[in-house]
């Protein structure tokens, strides 16, 4: 039971991380109708920025702030230079163009930081575990990730639902042409939205960096998971992305932890050990395929559509 709680928390933590990526992806997808495969590259860049700044200053907080700001800036520059030219084009052009950007960013990172990968170490006070329920200790840093991501999710909700910028974002999602016709600087709005998505991705990269190594291609597999999340949640729906992130995070983590045991009852021990992780990795894709076939608009579609 204690193990179960721990695994659930791990699942929520992964889900929160996925949400940070998926939120930006679903905004860009919903508003600009852009399939952005290079979103994972911004996640990677965020992690590299943070690792570099942390090595220079020795402060995790400074690294976090600088990395998020740098990701925001990189995203906006990228949008102005390249991405904005892809709007209104065929999805196939998006796939080709942003696939090219992945190659470019991976190589750029290799040029600047080398191929070896970096690590980002946490301040020592983060390395402790806290007792969440009597008898259950959980790493403090993972709790921090959950809480920080929740705070960011809350902030995002306030920005999107309660501010003028958010109103424009929502308006842009439901009818682009009309917003432009009403005199809103739609180009600037798109740049801001893309930058916001990049900053969220960068933030996710920084938060995840101390747990995993910072390496080239780190954004590629998690990007696909983020796509799975926005398809399950419904394209363009931040609420959907939030709920689907937690579902996917829980399925992946809890499945990985318990499927081998469950399979043990059905299969031989050896087969269960190898089948378990494979099956739990597949489970979210099975869920996504099921959602696409049965409820193509997603489980929690955006209300405006």
């Amino acid at each position, binding site marked *: 039971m204690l193990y179960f709680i721990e695994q659930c928390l791990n699942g929520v933590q992964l889900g929160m991380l996925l949400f940070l990526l998926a939120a930006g992806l679903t905004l860009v997808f919903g508003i600009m109708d852009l399939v952005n495969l290079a979103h994972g590259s911004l996640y990677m860049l965020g992690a590299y920025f943070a690792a570099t700044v942390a090595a220079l200053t020795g402060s995790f907080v400074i690294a976090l702030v600088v990395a998020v700001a740098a990701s925001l800036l990189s995203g906006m520059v990228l949008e102005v230079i*390249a991405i904005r030219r892809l709007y209104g084009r065929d999805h196939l052009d*998006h796939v080709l*163009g942003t696939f*090219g950007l992945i190659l*470019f960013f991976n190589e750029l990172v290799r040029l600047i930081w080398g191929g070896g990968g970096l690590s980002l170490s946490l301040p020592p006070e983060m390395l402790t575990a806290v007792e969440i329920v009597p008898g259950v200790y959980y790493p403090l840093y993972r709790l921090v990730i959950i809480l920080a991501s929740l705070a960011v999710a809350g902030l995002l909700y306030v920005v999107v639902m309660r501010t003028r910028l958010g109103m424009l974002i929502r308006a842009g999602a439901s009818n682009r042409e009309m917003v432009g016709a009403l005199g809103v600087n739609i180009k600037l709005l798109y740049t801001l939205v893309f930058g916001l998505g990049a900053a969220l991705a960068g933030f996710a990269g920084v938060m995840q960096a101390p747990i995993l190594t910072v390496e080239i291609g780190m954004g590629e597999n998690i990007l696909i998971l983020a*796509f799975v999340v926005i398809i399950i949640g419904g394209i363009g729906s931040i609420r959907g992305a939030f709920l689907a992130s937690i579902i996917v995070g829980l399925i992946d983590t809890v499945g990985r932890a318990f499927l081998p045991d469950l399979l043990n009852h059905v299969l031989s021990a050896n087969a269960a050990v190898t089948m378990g*992780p494979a099956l739990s990795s*597949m489970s979210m894709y099975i869920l996504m395929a099921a959602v*696409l076939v049965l409820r*193509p608009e997603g489980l929690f579609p955006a209300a405006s559509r």
Partner: protein
Amino acid sequence: MTTSVDPALTPSLDVAPKRRLTPRAAFTVALLLVLAFLPLYATLTGDAFVLTLFTRVIILAIGAVSLNLIMGYGGMVSFGHAAYLGIGGYAVGILAKEGIASGFIQWPVAIAASALYALAVGALSLRTRGVYFIMITLAFAQMAYYVTIGLDRYGGDDGLPIRQRSQFGGLIDLTNKTAFYYLCFVLLLVCIYLIWRIVNSRFGLVVQGARVNDRRMRAIGFPTPRYKLVCFVIAGAMCGLAGALLANHTNFISPAMMHWTRSGDLIVMVVLGGLGSLFGPLIGTATFILLQEALSRVTQYPDLFLGPLLLLVALYVHGGIQGLLEGRRE
């Protein structure tokens, strides 16, 4: 739909069939001639590497032409096409490991397994369209990827070396590089011929019609989902053959064969060469692989140039290299 339809007509509708040698046709013929005489050059210069490199080009070109059949002619953007390369490869690898080395068994199994998988994936994915189709094909390819990672007996994550290439009872020796090269080349030509026949048949016209306007095709009485599904299965089977060849070429199979970036590579090859053109995917595959190879000789960071190039192609080149040869620009 009154006159017969040239395949070149389908992507743009502004190319009238011409009798004289266009730059595009000349380029295609030149490329085919180079490919046909390449082993001669390799033997004369003793450059075995160039033959290995071009064998790879040709095998991946089979994958690319099969993807072009559904993506270029059928409008089905599959982002999971590398799965068939993997399934074809694993069919050969698994049978070889279990002691069945005969190519007469291995290759039909590779093709049938890929076709079966394509049938399942197509039946579910073709209910969706647009970006959802892109994502669901990707999802199925990821599933196949994770299944192979779980195959501990067959190497799991690390992959599986193939100790013996497919045996054809003395008919052809696949360890002979030249023989293997020509076999791949002939199979590529057969695939291109088949696709030419398909896109010019009534069946192919229905599929292309469904790409242009699916609703209208259904309104005039064609059950387009069925047509598309058959087309999807044919493409999968063809790519499964490419997978079987690839496994024989590298003597090795691993889940990395079907990583989603490999599917991305295939899309790049098709679009780079020219979507919906008969020889475009071959040109695109050759360009992509040779460019990678050339760039990696002059710089340590080839993708620094290749990446932006792809972006530029996506932005400014319509119809890929084939389109450029036509002199159409946008």
